[in-house]
């Protein structure tokens, strides 16, 4: 019964979204207030109906209703409750439902916080949101219905892919989708602006909080995915340039560019067409990400729903959405008037440089991801593009970006002098040179690349802190004056300092994990000791243990610092076989320290020697810095989101714009 209610609610949601996608749009074009007024209630109705559908599916999962095909395929009675719930979106159909739910949440957030948006803009934004929902609801109902029944119901389900039964991954898709779908807000605003033929600073101020929120969520999603790969796949790697990873990384890169260009559009009324373009690109890449993962045009280790029929549907959807909006852009874009002028060396110039590098990086990742597809489509054979290409093409773009990132905030708007700005950074430069030199003179693992990486991280990190200190006149004015300046500093500036500093911290982690990783693979008998990067790992043997829905082999390693008797930590990696699917997973045991992670994985038993196992022991230096750095970045994004101008009415502009919308938080 609940399942039918869910199904009907979803059909109802489709009709509501058709209404939401058409009536207010027509109303806005004709200037009819009543028609435009349909938008807000429709967005509430959509949130309600989609929530009912989502709740119905969740009930089916939690209650293990095996008359529902989707539950049969992805759940099992013995699964822990958390994974019964996360199983709702751990599969293709359910994840699409989550997508639409998040879209509905964002849509109603516009109704809630956008009371002071101009009537026409609000109606158009909500209509575009409605149209996106129409596409996705049609897709769900016709090709991926999660409410399909199965008769006769089997006694138990087939369980969720055990790799996905993990706390990190339970929350990875929701955050990723909050990011993807969040960019739909910027997109809807861009389309609405093109339809209205007006892009002004007030418009940019409305777009920015939504983009910031989406960017922060997407960052969390990507980091959760990377963290999961790091501890679950058992290779000690954290980024593989896999198509699915790239699919989430491209919108992030474009979104980062959008965040920065929106600043220029808001403060200086410049780069407006470009900002609109980036808003379309960021969401298009989100859609493309969905397409790449779901349609099967690219193989990937974790494409969990591949079906050409769905692919055709999504392709048509993409052509309408992306092709349509680019056509609109080509038609109305040239009418957007360019605003404030600026010199190449200026704050605007540095933000534009950020944009150019970010979009180039996006294009590189897009090219690398799609290259196998191009070659295959041209019948030139099958190729795969791996990390060597991406590292060789992506990192050189990031180097000038990071170098310029420390300088940009010192430049003033309109026109600036590069030399005085660089002069202000002389101590930072000396410090980063010293850090690079120290890295290069290390006893072990000194390399030019790693030293340069550390140089860049210190350059960015110290440069950001130094700029912050300058801004509050630390040590130059009285302490009280500095404190006062700190309190008065806009939250968006705080946000910038945090995110830039966070990136510096994360770069240190990336350099460490890539340059100084130590690994050792061997066969070990119980009692045997292997030394890895100054740590003695003694294999104490392995035994069988039983989990709630798996059987596991649990090994035990006592770890001591070389030369010491005291046990530093005991690591217990596992190899699990999930009872229902019979699929094995490795559970690495990780002990994190600020200097690096002690990481142990247990492999296959020896054929000849009883009790001996293949073991993989790693020392992954500075990995935690990556997670901490990324967390600081997200925190910075959230701080910026609470900026005063997003919370209260911004000063009126001569264009007569009304006060800004509040953010989604």
């Amino acid at each position, binding site marked *: 019964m609940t399942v039918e209610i869910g199904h009907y609610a979803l059909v109802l949601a489709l009709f509501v979204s058709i209404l939401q996608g058409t009536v207010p749009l027509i109303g806005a074009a004709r200037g009819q207030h009543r028609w435009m007024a349909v938008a807000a209630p429709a967005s509430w109705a959509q949130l309600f109906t989609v929530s009912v559908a989502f709740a119905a599916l969740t009930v089916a999962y939690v209650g293990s209703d095996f008359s529902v095909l989707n539950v049969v395929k992805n759940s099992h009675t013995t699964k822990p409750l958390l994974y019964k719930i996360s199983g709702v979106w751990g599969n293709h159909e359910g994840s699409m439902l989550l997508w639409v739910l998040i879209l509905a949440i964002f849509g109603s957030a516009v109704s809630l916080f956008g009371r002071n948006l101009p009537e026409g803009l609000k109606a158009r934004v909500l209509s575009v949101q409605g149209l996106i929902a129409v596409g996705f609801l049609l897709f769900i109902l016709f090709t991926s219905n999660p409410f399909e029944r199965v008769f006769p119901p089997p006694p138990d389900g087939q369980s969720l892919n055990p790799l996905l039964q993990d706390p990190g991954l339970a929350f990875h898709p929701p955050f990723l989708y909050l990011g993807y779908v969040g960019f739909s807000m910027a997109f809807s605003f861009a389309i609405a602006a093109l339809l209205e033929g007006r892009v002004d600073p007030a418009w940019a101020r409305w777009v920015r909080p939504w983009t910031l929120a989406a960017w922060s969520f997407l960052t969390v999603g990507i980091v959760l995915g990377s963290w999961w790969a790091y501890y679950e796949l058992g290779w000690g790697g954290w980024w593989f340039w896999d198509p699915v990873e790239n699919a989430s990384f491209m919108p992030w890169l474009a979104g980062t560019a959008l965040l920065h260009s929106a600043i220029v559009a808001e403060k200086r009324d410049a780069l407006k067409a470009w900002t609109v373009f980036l808003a379309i690109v960021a969401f*298009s890449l989100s859609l493309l990400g969905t397409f790449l993962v779901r349609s099967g045009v690219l193989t990937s280790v974790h494409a969990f729903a591949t079906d050409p029929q769905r692919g055709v549907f999504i*392709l048509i959807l993409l052509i309408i959405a992306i092709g349509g909006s680019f056509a609109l852009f080509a038609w109305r874009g*040239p009418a957007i008037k360019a605003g404030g002028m600026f010199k190449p060396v200026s704050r605007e110039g540095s933000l534009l440089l950020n944009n150019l590098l970010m979009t180039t990086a996006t294009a590189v990742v897009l090219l690398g991801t799609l290259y*196998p*597809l*191009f070659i295959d489509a041209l019948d030139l054979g*099958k190729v795969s593009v791996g990390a060597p290409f991406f590292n060789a093409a992506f990192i050189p773009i990031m180097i000038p970006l990071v170098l310029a990132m420390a300088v940009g905030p010192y430049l003033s708007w309109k026109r600036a002098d590069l030399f005085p700005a660089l002069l202000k950074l002389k101590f930072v430069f000396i410090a980063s040179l010293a850090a690079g030199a120290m890295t290069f003179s290390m006893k072990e693992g000194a390399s030019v690349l790693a030293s340069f990486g550390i140089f860049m991280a210190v350059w960015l990190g110290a440069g950001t802190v130094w700029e912050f200190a300058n801004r509050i006149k630390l040590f130059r004015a009285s302490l009280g004056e500095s404190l006062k300046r700190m309190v008065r500093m806009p939250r968006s500036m705080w946000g910038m300092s945090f995110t830039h500093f966070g990136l510096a911290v994360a770069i240190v982690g990336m350099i460490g994990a890539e340059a100084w990783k130590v690994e050792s693979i061997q066969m070990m008998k119980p009692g045997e000791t292997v030394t890895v990067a100054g740590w003695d790992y003694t294999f104490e043997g392995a035994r069988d243990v039983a989990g709630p829905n798996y059987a596991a082999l649990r090994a035990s390693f006592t770890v001591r610092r070389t030369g010491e008797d005291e046990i530093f930590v005991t690591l217990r990696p596992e190899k699990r076989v999930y009872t229902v699917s019979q699929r094995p997973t490795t559970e690495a045991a990780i002990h994190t320290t600020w200097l690096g992670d002690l990481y142990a994985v247990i492999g296959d038993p020896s054929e000849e020697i009883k009790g001996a196992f*293949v073991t993989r022991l790693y020392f992954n230096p500075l990995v935690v810095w990556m997670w901490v750095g990324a967390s600081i970045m997200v925190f910075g994004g959230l701080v910026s989101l609470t900026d005063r101008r997003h919370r209260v009415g911004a000063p009126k502009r001569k264009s007569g714009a009304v006060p800004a919308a509040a953010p989604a938080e």
Partner: protein
Amino acid sequence: MSKRLIYLLPLGIFLILAVYFAVGLTKDPRKLPSTLINREVPAFDLPAIQGFDRGFSSQDLMGQVTLVNIFGSWCVACLAEHPFLMELKKNNVIPIYGIDWREKTDGAATQWLERHGNPYTLVGDDRDSRVSIDFGVTGAPESFIVDKKGIVRYKHIGPIYPETWRDTLFPIVEELRKE
């Protein structure tokens, strides 16, 4: 006019992409090129791994029945079959040619072979997968039996254990030696 063209550019690029997607949908990315069973080995000439004098080429496989083994120092399952390959080498059962696949660092394979022993007659470095893809490799370890005329006759996926060798691979090798 030129300004308008710039604004048309994104649409144009996207439409080209869309055509590729449409063609891509008609293809199955999982279907790898048919493995080379009963076909000649692809012509190749692999360089040596660090510390070795020479690699090997498809010519080296001619005139004898050989086992071509795909391995890598990063591959755990390769370690599982390694003791048995060493045994084959010790007893002079069959010449084994190793293709060192997707190695990331110079010398990793050399160290690996020093530590665990070298069962190979010759080893070639295939870090960019060029030859392995021609062979239709899907993972490591994988082994191919090549006959005297250089034709691939059998492909074994996964580690070779004594039982698989005794029951499956060795009978094929014996058969081919008679040809």
